[in-house]
C-alpha cells in the first residue's frame, strides 16, 4: 500500500562520517534560519541517469561567448538535434553559479530562453525548462528573479498534458515562490492558485508530489495567512488535498507528505479551520493516523515520520477549534483507536525520532484535556504505565507526560483510583529528585490532585519519604508556595 518514494542519492566517494558531519552542519544552519524566520529550502530536480549517460557530473563554467553561441544554435540551428545539444550544453553549464551569473547579465538571454520554452519543439521546450529550473534553484536572488518573465508561461503550462513537463514547471515555480515576496506578488495575480486547483486533478503521482511541494512553499510564506491562505481556502484545493490524504491502497507517501505539510501550514495559521472541519478534515486525519500506526508496525520504511509529524500537528491544532468540540456531532473525534494509534506512534518516535515525542504528547494532551472518554480509554487500554516509562526521556517530555496524567487525575476519584497504586508513586518521587522547576512543579500539581481524590495517597507518600523529597525545593521561588501547601496537606489532610 505504501509506495516507496524515490530514493536518496548520495554523492559517491563520501564517507559515512563525513555525511553525518555535513548533516549536522546543515541541521544547525536550518535551526538558525528558523529562529531568524528565514527557513527556506529549494528543491532541485535533476535527471541523474541522463547525466551519467552524458559523461559524468563534471560541471563546466561557460563564458559569455560560449553562452551566446549555445543560445544562437538553439534558436537558429538548422538541425533539431543540433539545437537540442546546444541547449543541453547550456543547461549543464548552468549548474554552476558562475555560469548562472554570466547568463543573467547577458542581454536577451532570458528572452531567448523563454522563446524556446514556448516553442513548439517538445524537446527544446523541455531543455529550456530545465535551464530555467537550474536558475530557479540558485541561492542568489538576482539569478532566481531573472526567471520572472517566464512565470506566466509556467502557469499556463500547468493546464497542459505532458506530466514530465508539468512536474518540471511545478518544481521551478516552487523554487521561485520561496525566493521573495516580490515574486509571490507577481504569481498571485497571475493566477497561481486557480492554476494549482486545476492541476491537482492530475492522475500522475509525480505531478501531484511536485504540486504539493509548490503549494507548501506558497503556504509557508510570511504573508500567507493574510494574502494566500484565504484564496486557497476559497478554492477547491482543500477538498482535493483531503482526498489525497485518504488512507487506502491509493495513498502515496511522497504525495501525502507534501499535502500534509500544506494542511499544517493552513491550519496553524488559523484562518478558517472551521471550514476544514466541515469538509471532514478531522475524520480523514484521524483515519490516516490509524493507518500510519498500522504502517509503522509493518515496515521499516524510512520516512514515515515525515508524514506522521504534520498529521499529528494538524489533528492537535484542529482539536482546539470550537467546531471540533460538539460532542456527539459528526465532526467529533471520538474513536479510542486514535489513542491506540498514538501510543504506537509514540513508541515509533522513541526509536526513530525522539525529538518528535513532545509533538505526539501535545496531541495526547489535546485529546485528553476535556474528554472523560479519552481519559477513561487511557486507563482501560492500560496505557498509564507506558506513559510513565516516557518520564526519563527529557524534561520537556516529562512535563507533557505529567500534564496528561493531571488531565486524568483532575477528573476525580473514579479516575485517580485507577492511577493508584502501581508505579505512579515511585515514579513521582523520582521526578521530585530532579531539579527542573517545571517538571517538579507539574509533579507537585499531580500530587495535590492525588491527595485530594485518592484516599491513602498522602499517607503512602509520607511513608515513602515524600516530605524529604519535597524539602530540597522549599526555597525555589516558583515552587515554594505549592511545596509548602502540599507538605501541609500531606501532614494534616
Amino acid at each position, binding site marked *: 500500500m505504501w509506495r516507496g518514494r524515490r530514493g536518496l542519492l548520495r554523492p559517491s566517494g563520501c564517507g559515512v562520517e563525513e555525511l553525518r558531519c555535513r548533516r549536522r552542519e546543515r541541521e544547525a544552519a536550518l535551526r538558525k534560519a528558523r529562529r531568524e524566520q528565514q527557513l527556506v529550502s529549494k528543491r532541485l530536480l535533476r535527471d541523474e541517469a541522463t547525466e551519467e549517460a552524458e559523461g559524468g557530473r563534471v560541471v563546466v563554467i561557460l563564458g559569455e561567448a560560449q553562452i551566446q553561441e549555445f543560445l544562437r544554435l538553439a534558436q537558429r540551428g538548422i538541425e533539431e538535434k543540433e539545437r537540442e545539444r546546444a541547449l543541453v550544453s547550456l543547461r549543464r553549464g548552468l549548474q554552476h553559479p558562475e555560469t548562472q551569473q554570466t547568463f543573467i547579465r547577458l542581454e536577451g538571454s532570458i528572452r531567448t530562453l523563454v522563446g524556446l520554452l514556448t516553442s513548439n519543439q517538445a524537446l527544446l521546450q523541455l531543455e529550456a525548462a530545465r535551464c530555467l529550473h537550474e536558475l530557479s534553484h540558485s541561492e542568489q536572488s538576482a539569478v532566481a528573479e531573472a526567471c520572472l518573465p517566464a512565470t506566466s508561461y509556467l502557469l499556463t503550462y500547468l493546464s497542459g498534458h505532458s506530466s514530465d513537463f508539468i512536474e518540471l514547471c511545478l518544481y521551478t515555480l516552487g523554487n521561485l515562490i520561496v525566493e521573495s515576496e516580490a515574486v509571490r506578488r507577481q504569481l498571485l495575480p497571475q*493566477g497561481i492558485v486557480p492554476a494549482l486547483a486545476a492541476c491537482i486533478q492530475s492522475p500522475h503521482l509525480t505531478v501531484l508530489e511536485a504540486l504539493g511541494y509548490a503549494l507548501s512553499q506558497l503556504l509557508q510564506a510570511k504573508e500567507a495567512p493574510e494574502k494566500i491562505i484565504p484564496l486557497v481556502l476559497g478554492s477547491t484545493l482543500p477538498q482535493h488535498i483531503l482526498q489525497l490524504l485518504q488512507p487506502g491502497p491509493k495513498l502515496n507517501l511522497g504525495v501525502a507528505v507534501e499535502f500534509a505539510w500544506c494542511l499544517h*501550514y493552513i491550519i496553524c495559521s488559523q484562518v478558517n479551520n472551521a471550514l476544514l472541519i466541515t469538509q471532514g478534515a478531522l475524520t480523514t486525519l484521524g483515519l490516516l493516523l490509524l493507518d500510519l*500506526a498500522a504502517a509503522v508496525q509493518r515496515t521499516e520504511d524510512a520516512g514515515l515520520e515525515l508524514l506522521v509529524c504534520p498529521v499529528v500537528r494538524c489533528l492537535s491544532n484542529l482539536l482546539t477549534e470550537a467546531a471540533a468540540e460538539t460532542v456527539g456531532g459528526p465532526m467529533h473525534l471520538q474513536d479510542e483507536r486514535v489513542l491506540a494509534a498514538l501510543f*504506537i506512534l509514540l513508541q515509533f518516535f522513541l526509536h526513530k525520532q525522539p525529538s518528535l515525542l513532545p509533538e505526539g504528547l501535545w496531541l495526547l494532551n489535546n485529546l485528553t484535556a476535556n474528554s472523560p472518554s479519552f481519559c477513561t480509554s487511557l486507563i482501560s487500554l492500560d496505557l498509564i504505565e507506558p506513559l510513565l516509562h516516557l518520564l526519563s526521556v527529557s524534561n520537556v517530555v516529562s512535563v507533557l507526560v505529567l500534564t496528561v496524567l493531571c488531565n486524568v487525575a483532575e477528573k*476525580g476519584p473514579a479516575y485517580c483510583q*485507577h492511577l493508584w497504586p502501581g508505579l505512579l508513586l515511585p515514579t513521582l518521587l523520582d521526578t521530585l529528585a530532579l531539579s527542573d522547576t517545571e517538571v517538579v512543579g507539574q509533579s507537585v500539581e499531580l500530587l495535590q490532585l492525588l491527595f485530594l481524590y485518592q484516599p491513602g495517597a498522602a499517607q503512602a507518600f509520607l511513608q515513602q519519604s515524600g516530605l524529604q523529597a519535597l524539602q530540597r525545593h522549599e526555597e525555589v521561588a516558583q515552587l515554594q508556595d505549592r511545596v509548602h501547601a502540599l507538605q501541609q496537606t500531606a501532614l494534616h489532610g
Partner: protein
Amino acid sequence: MQLPPALHARLAGAPGAAAPLPVQRDSLAGNAPFRFAARQVRFPREHEFFEDGDVQRHLYLQDVITQVAAEPERPRVPEFTCQVAGCCQAFDALEDYEHHYHTLHGNVCSYCKRAFPSGHLLDTHIQEWHDSLFQILAERQDMYQCLVEGCTEKFRTSRDRKQHLVAHHLYPADFRFDKPRKAQQAWERAGALVQHPSPSVPCGCALTL
C-alpha cells in the same frame, strides 16, 4: 516503552469509545497556590515548539534528488515514429512521445493548425479567430474573456483584454498565446467577399471593415 499486547488488536478492531468513568471534581482542586487546569493547547506557525519537526522537513527537502530513470513507468522501447500525418519524429521512450504529441499535435486548431498549451486556450482561440458568430456578438457585448483560469472578466476588444492581462494579472505585454488577429481578419474578409454569390445579398463583413 512496552505497549500492552492487546493494543495492536484494538487498533485493528472496530471504532468505538469507552463509556466514560463518572467525573467528580472538588472545588479545592487547582486552587491557589496550585494552578493546574486541564486545557487544550494550540501552537501558531512560528512557535519554537515546532522547530525540530520543521528542521527535519527541510532536511528532507534539501536531500531528495529524484532518480528519474528509476521510475518503473518509463521503459525504453524500440524506436517508433509519430503516427500523425506529416510528422516523422522518432522516439525511444513513451514519455518523450507523450510530450511531443501534446506539444505539437494536442490542442491543435483544425482551422489554422496552431498548437496551444491547453484546451482552454485552444477553445478561446477557435472562438475568437474562427467563429463568425463570435464576431457578430462581439459588436454588441463583451465577448473577449480573460485568459487567466479563474478570472471571469470579459472585454469588448482583444486590446482591452490585453490591457487587463498586463495591468491586473501582471502578464507580459507580448504574451505568446494572446496574439491579435488583425492580419487574419483582413484575409478572411477578403476570402468572404470573393465567395459571395450575388451582390444583392447583404454582406455585413464588407461594411464593417
